[in-house]
């Protein structure tokens, strides 16, 4: 018997008991669809993060924070943590949660580190312009390194060391501040209102808009200013206050020699660790977002896997019934000279066909779901993130899934197929 005939007869045999075949395929479909759809979302999210990383990210810089601060942040994340922790001056003192001038100097001494800049805490009350009376919230932040590439829609990058105060705005401000478009606001001067912390008096700081950012999840709503603008804001913010207050730093950004490679980076991280700091590159931060997301996806994939496991038991059951029903036919075919191997193959191919149809329908329905869900998502909860396709399919991923499901189906099919192959033709022909 030729392979093509075996495949054809396996498919037509499946149609003999349509209800049973349909239900078995349905079970495989549910598992395959779950896996394909979640992995589609995973691909969609990862692709989006990757393109964001290309436009906003950059090599050769590392963000530094005190380990004590990181611990506080982590303990805030662990909801309802129970027992009170004993105070330990080595790790818990306020001093340990900030980066002092001496700390910055020590970091600067680490081999491979080229420069360090502490991120001072700057705040603006609101943003406004000469063209409007309205006031809008804004969170400016000093761009610590020009190695951080940012995704600019209009205008240019700020001149970090330049003498004139400059800002790159988040998208959306141009219209509300009375300008026609993003291109229109570039080159204009806007006003940042800053409150003196000591007196609560509001002062206006004039800053020139040099660019507008693209929408992104990675920028987290920050508008970037250069050192000149930062200094002016700090001058207002900490007027009448001690110098030490103004110089308090919780985060720092260091530039490192990226020619040292991953090994050099590990060494730098170890050195930072020894000093009581943690260092994270942009990839590390994105990796955290990704791994958090991957964990959610993993849960769904496991559900899909469990569904497939249950479905494979369905395959075994379906085929055992088929073998029982077709006992005499098996006997007849054996009498007519069909070998054991071919009988085994016939039933395994039937199992594989079940797996194929189940997963293929899963892929098809997932694709339809993508066609429906993506535009809906883009119009609703992903409205502010252009270019974010919620679901995206990777051909190799689909092929792997179909192949894996077919392999699982084959394994499930071996049990009934073996029983069919072992049947004695005489016994089988006598079977009533």
């Amino acid at each position: 018997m030729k392979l093509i005939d075996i495949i054809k007869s396996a498919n037509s045999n499946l149609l003999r008991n349509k209800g049973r075949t349909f239900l078995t395929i349905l079970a495989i479909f549910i598992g395959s669809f779950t896996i394909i759809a979640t992995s589609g979302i995973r691909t969609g999210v990862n692709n989006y993060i990757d393109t964001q990383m290309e436009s906003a990210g950059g090599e050769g810089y590392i963000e530094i924070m005190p380990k004590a601060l990181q611990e506080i942040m982590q303990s805030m994340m662990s909801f309802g943590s129970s027992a009170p922790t004993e105070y330990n001056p080595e790790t818990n003192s306020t001093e340990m949660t900030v980066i002092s001038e001496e700390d910055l100097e020590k970091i600067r001494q680490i081999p491979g580190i080229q420069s360090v800049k502490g991120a001072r805490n700057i705040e603006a009350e609101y943003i406004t312009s000469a063209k409007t009376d309205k006031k809008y919230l804004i969170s400016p932040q000093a761009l610590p390194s020009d190695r951080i590439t940012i995704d600019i829609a209009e205008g240019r990058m700020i001149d970090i060391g330049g003498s004139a105060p400059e800002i790159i705005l988040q998208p959306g401000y141009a219209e509300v501040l009375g300008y026609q478009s993003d291109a229109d606001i570039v080159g204009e001067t806007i006003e940042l209102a800053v409150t003196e912390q000591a007196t609560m008096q509001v002062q206006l700081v004039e800053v020139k808009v040099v660019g507008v950012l693209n929408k992104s999840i990675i920028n987290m709503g920050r508008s970037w200013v250069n050192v000149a603008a930062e200094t002016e804001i700090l001058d207002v913010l900490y007027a009448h206050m001690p110098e030490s207050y103004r110089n308090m730093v919780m985060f720092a950004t260091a530039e490192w020699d990226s020619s040292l490679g991953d090994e050099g980076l590990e060494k730098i991280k170890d050195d930072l660790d020894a000093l009581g700091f943690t260092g994270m590159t942009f990839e590390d931060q994105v990796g955290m977002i990704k791994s958090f997301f991957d964990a959610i996806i993993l849960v769904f994939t496991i559900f899909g896997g469990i569904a497939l496991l249950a479905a494979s038991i369905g395959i075994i059951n379906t085929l055992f019934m088929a073998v029982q029903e077709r006992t005499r036919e098996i006997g007849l075919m054996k009498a007519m000279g069909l070998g054991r191997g071919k009988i085994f193959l016939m039933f395994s191919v039937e199992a594989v066909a079940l797996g194929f149809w189940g997963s293929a329908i899963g892929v098809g329905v997932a694709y339809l779901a993508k066609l429906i869900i993506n535009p809906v998502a883009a119009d609703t909860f992903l409205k502010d993130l252009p270019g974010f396709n919620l679901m995206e399919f990777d051909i190799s991923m689909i092929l792997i899934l179909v192949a894996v499901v077919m392999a699982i189906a084959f394994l499930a099919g071996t049990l009934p197929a073996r029983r069919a192959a072992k049947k004695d033709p005489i016994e089988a022909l006598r079977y009533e």
Partner: protein
Amino acid sequence: MSRLFSKKVLLLLTTCYILVYIMLLNKSILSIKNLTKTYGKKSSAFAALKGVSLDINKGESIAIIGKSGSGKSTLMHILALLDKPTSGSVEIDGVDSNQLSNKELNRLRNRRFGFVFQQFFMNANDTVLNNVILPLKIGGVAIRERKKRAMEALKAVELDDKAKNKAIDLSGGQKQRVCIARALVNNPKVIFADEPTGNLDSATGAAIEDLLFNLNKEKGITLIVVTHDAELAERCQRQLHIKDGQIIAPNADILKKGARV
């Protein structure tokens, strides 16, 4: 070239060739010697066949007759190579079946044997044509060739007009004719018919018998019928009575009716 062989050598070779040819012509298609078949082990052993020897000639029609439990079915199964004897040998065209691998046995059954069963054993929901095609499919015959040969076989049983019908829609006699077409489609040397008329009324049964014996006469297909129908057995050239695992009258010549050499 001719100098390489002297005339004497050529003559000798030709003589040998003719002799071998004559030997092959005369040789029986199936030959069994001292066949025994025992089921079960030691204490509960049951001997279904107790030393049976038999030669079946090409083109012969032979009836194996006996009560149920006599061992006639076992004998047929062993002759059809569906079962293996406990001891003794089965030769097909002079080849000892013990020497053949499973694959060769399957191939042999597929190419040289046809089967007709009392219960038909058809795929009821498939078409008549596909039922007839099955042995060709198993044998790996190309699709076009299959259809052609299946239609020829159906024509031989005068059912070519029913080729597209479902097997389930046929009458009993038509079903058995389809089964004969299926047995015929591989141009077999031997057709094994196990109670071929057992499920049919006498008129239809007679028609089926006619069909089988016509094939036997016209195509020279050896016909081996297992039956306890005396009338059907009478129509065969030779009758083998089996009782308690032995042939009652082993000397076939005595029983031979309408003798033909």
